């Protein structure tokens, strides 16, 4: 297969670590044959299949929606499945586990600090009518404009690339990080949610957005265009307004009553009963 200007062979330089065997991570090099269109993930599979079957990493969907394969590629955080070897333009591709998380093994980071920070900020709809939440009978009304206020931030796949790029996360384990904070803002801005006061209790302290200094690296590396930096600055505005007593509580989305006097058109079947 002709590759044009692209090389026949690429060297994968991978940071390996086996607990119990290695005291420190070591770099190992693996030359593999290159074919046009190979992603980093394809390269890792090639290494595992043809050279070293002990190489470990996380991957699942291989199409940029599950967030499993976050890793440092030539020093920059990104998804292995989304990154073409050709776009890197280097003959040696350096692959390392995501920074700022403990390494379990090879390219597998321990993401529990992320999950803990995320959970602590109640990343779900909080509202008083829990009966309706548990056994929904109708929709909550939300206009397109109201949805646009948080839609972008809802695309987060929790791949943790932003956490690896964030300069504050590089030294500070207490800071919640871009994922948790952007998701807190996603729910605070959702008109169906009434949990601002609950989340504020957590956000007002040192785990909140106060150690974000707008370096913007999180938004630069985000593979889904979530732009967590934008969410965090918008959230700071809300929290500062709240500190000054200037925050106006937005109206809560209300359930919509089924419209009265609507005739079902002939020939359209009823929806099947809910199975959940």
């Amino acid at each position: 297969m002709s590759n044009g200007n692209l090389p026949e062979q690429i060297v994968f330089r991978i940071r390996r670590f086996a607990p119990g065997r290695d005291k420190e991570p070591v770099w190992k090099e693996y030359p593999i044959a290159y074919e046009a269109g190979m992603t980093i993930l394809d390269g890792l599979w090639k290494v595992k299949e043809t050279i070293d079957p002990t190489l470990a990493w996380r991957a699942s969907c291989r199409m940029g929606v599950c967030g499993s394969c976050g890793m440092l590629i030539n020093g920059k955080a990104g998804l292995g499945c989304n990154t073409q070897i050709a776009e890197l333009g280097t003959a040696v591709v350096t692959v390392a586990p995501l920074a700022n998380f403990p390494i379990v093994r090879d390219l597998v980071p321990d993401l529990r600090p992320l999950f803990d920070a995320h959970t602590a900020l109640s990343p779900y709809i909080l509202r008083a009518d829990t009966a309706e939440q548990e056994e929904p009978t109708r929709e909550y009304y939300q206009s397109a404009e109201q949805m646009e206020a948080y839609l972008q931030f809802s695309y987060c796949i929790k791949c943790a690339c932003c956490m690896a790029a964030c300069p504050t996360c590089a030294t500070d384990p207490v800071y919640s990080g871009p994922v948790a904070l952007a998701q807190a803002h996603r729910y605070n801005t959702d008109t169906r949610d009434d949990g601002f006061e609950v989340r504020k209790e957590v956000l007002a302290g040192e785990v909140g957005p106060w150690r974000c200094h707008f370096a913007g690296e999180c938004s630069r590396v985000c593979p889904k265009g979530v732009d967590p930096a934008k969410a965090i600055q918008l959230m700071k505005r809300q929290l500062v307004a709240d500190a000054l007593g200037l925050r106006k509580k937005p109206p809560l989305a209300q359930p919509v009553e089924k419209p009265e006097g609507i005739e079902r058109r002939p020939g359209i079947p009823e929806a099947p009963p809910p199975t959940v």
Partner: protein
Amino acid sequence: MEKDRRHPNRLGIWGWVGGGSWGPDRYLYTLHRITGLGLLAYFLVHVVVTSSRALGEGAWEASMARVSGPLFVLGEYLVFVAFAFHAINGLRLFFAELGWGIGKPIEPIYPYRTCLDDQRPWALGALLLIAVLVVVGALDFFVWH
């Protein structure tokens, strides 16, 4: 209890300075931090040195004489430059970190536009203003005196 066999992997201060990802806004952040620390260090000493005016003309002239050598003048110019950067970039950050000038939430369509792209004109404007102040300051410090 299972022994913790994970390997720590935080970047540390290297993560402040570079960390492998080299966006321009990161450098504005790093410089803002360095100039802030420099200004603070100077300021703490400055309060003590200038307090000598409470003790009259003699004490004032003596303390000013101590800080008037060419090395001090250069140092003061660097403080002026640090101020120019920290203040103007700080003004930009004041607005940006309160959510102004960073764009509205959008539907992310590849290639993604981020708040950094919306901020870029403000960052460039700030750098231009800083450059003007640095040049004017240099003229005042070294040429017009």
